[in-house]
């Protein structure tokens, strides 16, 4: 369904994403891990077409997404929702309006300027908020919400787009462990219940291991690992993060229960390096 | 009694810089005659020159009759009229001319009823004072109250603006000045219309005269009363003899062909002063 073909992004002399090729056959929950600067964000932004690729192609159900322009490109963006680390909501607007922004692509510019949304959309927005457990916050301003709530509003906005795919760029990096868990649970539930594909950049191994069906490891813009979560050993992680022997997973863990768990060192990994 | 410099104010009707240039020769002669620096000033409108004379910042100017009246009414001790321009035919007068566009169908003041009428500058004799008195005398019901007889009465700011405003159709009719000699199609021999024609600004075929005033006395060249007598005498003599001395310079200063200047006194303008008093009050 989604095929990435030698996708490359260069910023001047730097290559942020370096000929990444990946194939996704069916909707799955996919985690991308990698150190800061590995190119995770750039990769997701290219898929959403927020950033243009330097080379390579993204093919979704037969369409070359990289070649889309103008209206068609915006149409693609509306089918492939994005969630950001900093939520990227409109802070001065109320929660429902923020969720309704998911329908912008379908509505005329003029109508949205005057706050004209069909009643059905408004109701659906509240249902989505309710599904994420924050319907009570509906009339509040987005900036009045806690981080975890804001991220759920962002997810609601994504769902409002009724997307084929949800891209999440470190969705829990600004959240405390408690809220992180709520958000990741929501994403997983959406994947399972709606069957939508979810690709999430994650900066902690245990989150990836716990929530994802498939984990992709990036380093210096290249894919250095692609496998099942159980293949993600400490050794593989060291490769991905380019860390020394003193690397310990718990140092970066956000899982509430990590402290009680043992790293399952027995798993085997498929590393590309 | 000594003066440190001599300041000549020049009235509108031309590009500010053109005016200063036309007077450059007079400036030289003055410096030579008085032995002090001479400066030229071209204020933006009549009022600028009047204020300069009243405030003592301008020593000599060629005023319009109404502007002289305004100066006199504000301070009778401010200036002395000394000379007046003499036309080629020996007269010292000119006329206020009312005109309209041919295609508006207006040919007389009667047809101006309900239409927009334009004056020039409020301090202009032919552009405001005289027509505002004589036009109402042309018909029983005519008054100059905006909205009463005319649809509206406006001030365009000056003769040039009036001509262009009428030619453009911004206003239906207006008044400006001319010597009323020569041919209408040339814009007469001299006056604002002639200048506009010469500049290619209007086509006289498109305009029609609808009114003409009685003869208006040409405005005086005035000197500030407070000036030392010898300065006044020297300047009067200089300008009086300008035509004989340097014809080109006289042409420039008088803005056209003339027979030169001749002496004039306050009494010539008494009627204009009375008129101004009647129209504006005080």
């Amino acid at each position, binding site marked *: 369904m989604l095929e990435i073909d030698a996708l490359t992004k260069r910023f001047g002399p730097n290559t942020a994403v370096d000929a990444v090729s990946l194939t996704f056959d069916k909707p799955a929950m996919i985690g991308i891990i990698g150190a800061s600067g590995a190119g995770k964000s750039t990769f997701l932004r290219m898929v959403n077409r927020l950033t243009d690729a330097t080379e390579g192609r993204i093919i979704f159900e037969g369409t070359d997404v990289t070649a889309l322009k103008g209206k068609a490109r915006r149409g693609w963006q509306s089918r492939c929702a994005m969630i950001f680390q900093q939520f990227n909501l409109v802070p001065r607007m109320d929660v429902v309006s923020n969720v309704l922004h998911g329908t912008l692509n379908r509505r005329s510019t003029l109508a949205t300027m005057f706050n004209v949304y069909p009643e059905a959309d408004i109701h659906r927005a509240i249902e989505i908020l309710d599904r994420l457990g924050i319907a009570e916050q509906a009339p509040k301003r987005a900036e009045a919400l806690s981080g975890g709530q804001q991220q759920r509003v962002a997810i609601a906005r994504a769902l409002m787009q009724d997307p084929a795919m949800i891209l999440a760029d470190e969705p829990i990096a600004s959240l405390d462990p408690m809220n992180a868990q709520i958000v990741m649970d929501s994403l997983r539930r959406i994947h399972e219940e709606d069957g939508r594909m979810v690709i999430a950049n994650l900066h902690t191994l245990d989150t990836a291991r716990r929530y994802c069906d498939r984990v992709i490891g990036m380093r210096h813009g290249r894919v250095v690992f692609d496998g099942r979560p159980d293949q993600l050993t400490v050794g593989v992680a060291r490769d991905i993060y380019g860390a020394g022997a003193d690397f310990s997973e718990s140092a970066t863990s956000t899982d509430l229960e990590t402290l009680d768990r043992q790293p399952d060192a027995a798993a085997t990994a498929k590393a590309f390096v | 009694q000594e003066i440190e410099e001599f300041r000549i104010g020049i009235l509108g009707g031309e590009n500010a810089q053109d005016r200063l240039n036309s007077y450059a020769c007079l400036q030289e002669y003055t410096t030579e005659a008085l032995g002090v620096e001479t400066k030229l000033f071209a204020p*933006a409108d009549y009022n600028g020159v009047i204020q300069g004379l009243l405030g003592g910042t301008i020593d000599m100017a060629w005023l319009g009759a109404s502007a002289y009246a305004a100066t006199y009414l504000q301070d009778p001790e401010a200036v002395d009229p000394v000379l007046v321009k003499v036309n080629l035919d020996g007269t010292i007068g000119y006329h206020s001319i009312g005109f309209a566009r041919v295609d508006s169908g207006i040919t007389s003041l009667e047809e101006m009823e309900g239409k927009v009428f334009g004056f020039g500058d409020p301090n202009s004799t032919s552009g405001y004072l005289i027509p505002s008195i004589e036009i109402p005398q042309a018909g029983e019901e005519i008054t100059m109250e905006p909205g009463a007889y005319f649809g509206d009465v406006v001030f365009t700011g000056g003769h040039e603006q009036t001509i262009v405003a009428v030619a453009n159709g911004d206003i239906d009719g207006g008044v400006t000045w001319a010597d009323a000699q020569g041919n209408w199609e040339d814009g007469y021999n001299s006056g604002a219309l002639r200048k506009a024609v010469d*500049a*290619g600004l209007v086509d006289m075929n*498109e305009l029609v005269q609808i009114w003409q005033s009685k003869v208006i006395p040409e405005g005086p060249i005035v000197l500030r009363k407070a000036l030392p007598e010898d300065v006044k005498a020297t300047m009067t003599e200089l300008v009086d003899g300008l035509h004989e001395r340097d014809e080109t310079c006289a042409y420039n200063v008088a803005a056209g062909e003339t027979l030169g200047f001749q002496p004039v006194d306050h009494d010539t303008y008494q009627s204009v002063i009375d008129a101004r008093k009647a129209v504006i009050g005080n």
Partner: protein
Amino acid sequence: MSDAMTLDTAKTDISALFRRKRLTAFAVPSVILAYFVYIFFAFDIPGLAQRADWDNAVTLASDSWSHKVHVTRDNSSGEMEYSVEGERKGNYPDGQRPAWVSGEDIVTVDLGGDHVVRFLDGTATEIEIPGFGLVEARTEGRTVLTNLPEAVPEWISVSDRRVGITTPEGRITITGSKTEVFNYFPGWELFFFTFESPYHGQPATRILFGDRIDPERANIVGAVQDFWNNAMWRHKDVVWAIGETILMAFLGTFGAAIIALPLAFLGAKRFAPVQAARFGIRRIFDFVRGVDALIWTVVLARAFGPGPMTGALAILVTDTGTFGKIFSEALENVEEKQIEGVQSTGAKPLQRYRFGVIPQVVPVLLSQILYFLESNTRSATIIGAITGGGIGLMLTQAIQTQKDWEEVAYYIILIVLMVMLMDWVSGKLRARLIKRSH
């Protein structure tokens, strides 16, 4: 998930909220729209569209980048005259005439595009217009006789006293007194040198590197002199006028700042020695600001007469009010910490101001002053037009006489450059001074 009841109430609540928001979203534009409709009629926009004279716009536009050369025959004397823009100072010197004029007895003017005007014997004229035919005209006394038919196209205006023909190549007018041909050319003619100058028509390379053209003077000196004293464009006067305008802005702005600074201390709550005086000072600021530069200009013109000093004073008076207000606000916002630090060393009151207050407000004040310097350059243009000085007067007068549009264009370009220059200079100074000032 919460029960259906609360979800439904949430839905109705939010729907109501959105109805309200939509109402306000529509209300503001509606009010503005209603206001515009009112203005549409109050300003008589429909009438305006009718009255707008696009011919004038065309004249203006074409005149501003082109010039015309007049060929005039005095119909009584038969004398021919050639001049640029019909001005005396643009007259071709005796014996010279434009290259597109030929013939001795019959003077032929080639307007281009096969349009030809022939001045025949006496008062007769022949005009060849391709696609229209040959127009013959002759004057007898005041009457103009032509072979033109009753019905003429709209670009010809005929009466028995005057004939005017306007073609794309040029214009011809015939009256009893004179026959005149205007030939239009792009560019500003005589911009560098008038006909009197020996450098007129000489290529730049000849002037720069060639032999002396005028044996009296070195080429470059002479060229600069003649350019500077060009009677047609008067570059010297224009430069003086610009200088006068900038001078008004400079004197007015800095004069105001110098006067306003001590007054601002008296007007600031924190520093005013007497509170009643503070109130008075504030009202004075409001008054001079409220009266506006325009009225100050008129009031001061009586006392000081026309000229740049009057303009500078008008700016000075108004800006003293503005600066007074801005400065005293800045003074009220100063931080107490620094003042207290200086005070704790036993500093005297003046020293307290010097070191506790001035360093804090200087950047704010300077940047304001420089900002006003730029905007006052623009005001000085307008004030000059009223009080009689600077480039503003030249510009407004040139516009009001409505014929020298190329000069208007020249002045406008210079004014825009002047304001942009001041903007640039003040921006640069601001950046520099604020970085290193004490």
